[in-house]
């Protein structure tokens, strides 16, 4: 039996895409991890932080710190929420040395799902099978704040029956950006349509990403455009057999 890991499923997965969380738990359990779900968890606070409301973000961050204080390892199905905790919590607590020390402890034990698999669990083949042609969308925060690029691709390469076709460019933003998506909805929508062109250009039948928020944006635009492409979180792909 491997170690214990705690899930931080994110508020978006909890409320809108629960199957992603279940898929992630399934994959981790198959690999022999004991998985727990600290029930006090809510949100990482990113919506407030990115909207300029730092004191509100700080309150939510404090709650997060308390909730996961006892966890040894935290796994998150989102690059963006992981980056919020691992990169921006420190900005919030610059003036509170004690909390800052706790933040630095937290930074060491929180992992985005795909890098947890490749770097901590040390696996690339999780025994998944999915007969599908897919393309991969790099979430901006996973790519640029966490430097994640190869881990998800290595995992996808080992899924039986799956063909990965890279879109050009894979690394351009889908236009979600949290409240940006509604404050500048027309612009955000235009960015999503540019992303769709790249996706459709590959001929793939599914778009895979590490971030539920990107997938909500992309699926929302796909559905509006009436395209026959589905979106899948990497966890859902890896849980398939």
């Amino acid at each position, binding site marked *: 039996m491997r170690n214990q890991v705690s899930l931080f499923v994110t508020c978006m997965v909890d409320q809108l895409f629960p199957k992603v969380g279940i898929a992630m738990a399934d994959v981790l359990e198959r690999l022999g991890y004991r998985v727990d779900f600290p029930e006090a968890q809510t949100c990482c606070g990113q919506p407030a932080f990115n909207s*300029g409301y730092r004191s509100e973000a700080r309150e939510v961050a404090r709650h997060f710190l308390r909730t996961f204080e006892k966890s040894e390892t935290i796994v998150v199905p989102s690059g963006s929420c992981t980056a919020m905790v691992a990169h921006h919590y420190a900005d919030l607590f610059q003036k509170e040395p004690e909390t800052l020390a706790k933040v630095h402890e937290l930074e060491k034990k929180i992992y985005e799902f795909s890098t947890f698999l490749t770097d901590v669990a040390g696996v690339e083949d999780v025994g998944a099978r999915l007969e599908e042609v897919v393309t991969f969308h790099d979430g901006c925060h996973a790519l640029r704040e966490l430097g994640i690029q190869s881990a998800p691709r290595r995992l996808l390469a080992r899924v039986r029956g799956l063909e990965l076709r890279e879109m050009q460019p894979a690394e351009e933003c889908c236009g979600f950006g949290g409240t940006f998506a509604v404050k500048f909805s027309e612009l955000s929508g235009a960015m999503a349509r540019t992303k769709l062109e790249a996706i459709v250009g590959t001929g793939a039948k599914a778009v895979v990403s590490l971030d539920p928020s990107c997938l909500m944006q992309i699926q*929302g635009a796909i559905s509006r455009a009436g395209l026959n492409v589905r979106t899948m979180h990497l966890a859902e792909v890896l849980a398939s057999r």
Partner: protein
Amino acid sequence: MSVEFDRKIHLTLADANLQLAVYTATGRLKEKRKEVTAADVLPEYQDLRSQANALKKHTIDNLDHYLEEFERNVQARGGHVVYCKDATEVSDFVLDLAKKRGSKLIVKSKSMTTEEVDLNERLEHHGLEAVETDLGEYILQLAHEKPYHIVAPALHKTRYDVADIFTKELKIERETVPEKLTMIARAVLREKFLKADIGISGANFLIADSGAVTIVENEGNARLTTSTPKIHITVAGIEKLIPRAQDLAVFLKLLARSATGQLLSVYTSFLAGPRRAGEVDGPEEFYVVLVDNGRTKLLPDRGKRQSLYCIRCGACLNTCPVYRKIGGHSFPWVYSGPIGAIITPQFMGPTHEPALPFASSLCGACGEVCPVKIDIPKVLLELRSDVKKAETREKQNRLEKLAFRIFAWVMTRPRVYEMAGRIAASMAPASDGKWLRNVPPPMNMGPVKAWLNDRDLPPSPSKSFRQMWRSR
């Protein structure tokens, strides 16, 4: 968001030709930059960025020292340094000098700093002729427009637009071939160069240990501007300093690569004072106008001070998915794109266009390509916080503030959070797993309505993750 900002974004998005022109042009520049900075082509690229960042940080952190060193060295070579706090002082200085020397015609090479202070308009108002000589800038001067892009100012104009402008303004027969249009401009501007009394240039770098101005360009118009007239005036922001001529080896390798994907621009001029005894040509008088115009306001904040490291390469514009959609003229000031979004609020105050720092998906592409490693996303986040603090002080946008107070309250109370989630889910219409094109009132308001303008909404699952987890 101001009505103006919103309207300009909308109009740009709705203009299919403009969308294609801007997206294609920036895409090409973006790809070229990527090719010449790739690890196998330039293995020292990241090292150069770090060095450039360290040099800029050091210079800005000790700016007064380098300003004075620069000043001493310019004077030692027979040049003059003039400090100007704002637009009026810059134009007063030029007007006064022109009057003393009896000058009528001024040729100008590209300078964003003079755009900042509306120098051309001010000079023309006093009866001087000031002619832009960079082809793109010349086109825009004839069209009475501001630059669309820091590096490629007329990026939004097609050959047909240029043909229309030249036909109307130069009273010539219509010509649409870019080569021929360029040669028409060359002929008109060559006459101006040979007659001009004063040349005004910008500067890419001011070299403290040399008292020198460095100008990077491709056309040769900056060389002409600084060589043919008897008087050369450089107008540059105080942040353009670097310590040593030797540091150019770092900056020149980064600048052209980041801007246009060239290894070096065609012409790099390193100019130190007026023509010297024995030299055959060059200006007789050499002035450097050091402009503040708000820059000193950026210095006190250690986190945001880095905004002054910018070397105006335009790489952040070309890679920015927002700039590539809304173009340069949607931005509220002369600087556009990510760098415009971080310097405009600091020059003009956070409430000048409060929405500006929010017009970003925070994708981080700008920070990744910045040759001097300005952490643009981080500065954007700090500016967002500044805007919200200002709004809170002035009791503006109180509904949003309340919404985020509620957000924080709910998110720190797991049971309330869970209940709120279930209530929201129960209100969502049944959809059989299909994504929703619209929702009934009262849900079709605010953010939900905005989302639904362009995208469908996910259906609410019958159970939240935590409910599923409990029944597992």
